[in-house]
């Protein structure tokens, strides 16, 4: 047969065979605990997706190096889904049916939400960064340890209200958010409940910025017309930096308040002086707060095994926390190492201490949201960090 043809055919058959044979896991030898996660390493949110993925990976490496949990090593499977839903679905199927993970950590709001009916059916608990309220009874297998974006915004609105600008008028706020689900969902939630009106601030405008926008001048100009005192932004660092810079360029003089994922050092680097006055919600400690014992542990691990890492982002800390939570859950589940076992274990968390990194975490069978508190932090462009300046603010459900 013509050589070239033969090569092609053999190549194809070889690939198919490879898939069939190797789709399973490589044995570690002993019994292991399998955890999976569906992360964005190369897609549009990868600027914060990568540190996020690294946080959990490092935590599990740390545990494994210290001997595992009760002698069991953790087998960790991160799959990059490039923020595309069909890939997320395929990744989920693979994790659950091929690798038999007993818990899973999610990233994107859209895909995590889409997975809720599936994780409920397959009984695999998922820890997410999820926006919405967790108290619905139909999400028995969905957990989030951070305060939701909605509650952050509510807290920020309360803060805005507490700082009156001048007499005789209400404080004016505007929303600027992403056209992706993580942006739309919280804004929709707040608008449905007329929250701004209820607490007494005036919602004057809202603008949408695309996830891959390279400029936002028209949006900034329109906002300027509405003269807000505060703009609350729900954008990841990429579009956020574009917006904040363009706002400065057109002379928009509102104070910008951002949600938790903007507490990012690289954002400050990009913004430079334009970042002055930026306030960000902080659900857990920043990695430069060396007086927090948990943070110190993170640096200890990194100094030893990852000496080249000089900056640790908030996302890393956030997912490191997930690692701590999972470790504890695995311990509490004892020998019942199944999805259901982990879920039940998680629901026994009452004021679980996280070495000061965040507020104590509580999961009950009726409420899968770990914490309702956050701090406000303000940008310090000279130091390139965010400094917390408020106490822990608790937001009512």
């Amino acid at each position, binding site marked *: 047969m013509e050589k070239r043809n033969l090569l092609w055919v053999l190549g194809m058959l070889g690939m198919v065979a490879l898939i069939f044979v190797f789709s399973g896991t490589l044995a570690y030898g002993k019994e292991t605990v399998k955890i999976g996660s569906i992360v964005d*390493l*190369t897609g*549009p949110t*990868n*600027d914060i*997706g*990568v540190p996020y993925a690294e946080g959990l990976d490092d935590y599990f490496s740390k545990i494994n190096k210290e001997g595992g949990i009760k002698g069991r090593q953790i087998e960790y499977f991160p799959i990059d889904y490039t923020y595309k839903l069909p890939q997320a679905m395929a990744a989920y199927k693979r994790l659950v049916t091929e690798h038999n993970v007993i818990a899973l950590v999610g990233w994107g709001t859209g895909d995590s939400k889409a997975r809720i009916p599936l994780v409920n059916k397959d009984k695999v608990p998922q820890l997410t960064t999820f926006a919405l309220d967790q108290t619905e009874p139909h999400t028995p297998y969905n957990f989030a340890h951070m305060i939701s974006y909605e509650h952050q915004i509510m807290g920020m609105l309360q803060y805005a209200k507490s700082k009156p600008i001048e007499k005789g008028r209400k404080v004016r706020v505007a929303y600027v958010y992403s*056209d992706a689900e993580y942006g739309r969902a919280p804004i929709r939630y707040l608008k449905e409940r007329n929250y701004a009106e209820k607490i007494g601030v005036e919602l004057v405008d*809202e*603008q*949408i910025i*695309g*996830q*891959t*926008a*390279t*400029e936002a*001048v*028209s*949006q900034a*100009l*329109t906002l300027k*017309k509405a003269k807000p005192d505060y703009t609350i932004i729900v954008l990841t*660092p*990429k*579009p956020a*930096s*574009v917006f904040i*810079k*363009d706002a*400065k*360029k*057109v*002379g928009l003089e509102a104070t910008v308040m951002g949600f938790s994922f903007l507490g990012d050092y*690289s954002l400050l*680097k*990009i913004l*430079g*002086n*334009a970042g002055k006055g930026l306030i960000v919600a902080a659900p857990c400690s920043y990695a430069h707060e060396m007086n927090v014992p948990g943070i110190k542990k993170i640096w200890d691990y990194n100094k030893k095994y990852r000496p080249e890492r000089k900056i640790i982002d908030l996302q890393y800390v956030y997912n490191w926390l997930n690692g701590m939570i999972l470790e504890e859950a695995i311990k509490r589940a004892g020998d019942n190492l199944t999805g259901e076992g982990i879920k039940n274990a998680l629901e026994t968390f009452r004021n679980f201490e996280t070495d000061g990194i965040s507020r104590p975490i509580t999961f009950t069978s009726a409420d899968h949201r770990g914490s309702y508190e956050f701090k406000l932090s303000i940008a310090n462009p000279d130091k390139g960090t965010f400094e917390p300046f408020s106490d822990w603010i608790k937001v009512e459900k």
Partner: protein
Amino acid sequence: MSENIAFLAQLLLTGLVLGSVYALVALGFVLIYKSTSILNFAQGELLMFGAYICLTLIIELRIPFIYAFFLTLAFSFILAVLLERVILRPMIGEPIISIIMVTIALSAVLRSLIQIAWGTETKVFPRIFSEEPIRFFGLFIAEVHLWSLIFALTCVVLFALFFKFSAAGIAMRVTAFDQQIAQSLGINIKRIFALSWAISAIVSSIGGIILGNINGINNALAAMGLKVFPCVILGGLDSILGAILGGFSIGILENLAGGYLDPVFGGGVKDVAPFVFLVVVLMIKPYGLFGKIRIERL
């Protein structure tokens, strides 16, 4: 100045600035199309590449901006010639859709390479321009925008002159018009192909450097590659002048739509408006505003 007129003027101004960048990229795109009939889906990636290379030269190797700029252009030249030689030359004569697919795959490859080499963080050029906007007649224009506009316009004019008066430029126009005639005049077609890719990469790099200066460099810049389609269709795929005008028009249109229609439709209009406009224009003038009309009466 009344607030509304100021608003409009501001939008127009920004539209012009952005439009100048679009014009540059559209120019590059049409150039490739005219000489080789290829729709280059990798235009956005060429843009990113230029921006990243320039940044590396400035920051890692501490080369002053002027030299870094020209070095970047040289790199783009080499990259383009390489791509043309290795990947596109063998595809001559294949159905056009296969060639389009190759450029799509090429864009994926370039994007991955850029990610491997430069990571995922947004990078910024060192601050050359001040952050304070310049004010005149009650309007704002950021310094970086002003310089971008001037720069882009200069490039456009330079290239227009190049095509009109230089030997290479004229040779390219002949090749674009009819390859047979060009060959019979002794023009080396293959070299012309390589040259058009090279020039296209160069203008895209310039566009990338400009955009990178405005708002930082990250993989979102690749979206330019898609934005360029409405610009070139508007101007007509066959016309370089059309591409330039198309670029400016789309830039202005986008901003006007964003400013006036966003509140009506609840946002996001900015991104889709150029495409709606495109469909409308195509219905009325199927070859774009300046394209060569092929007369086919049936």
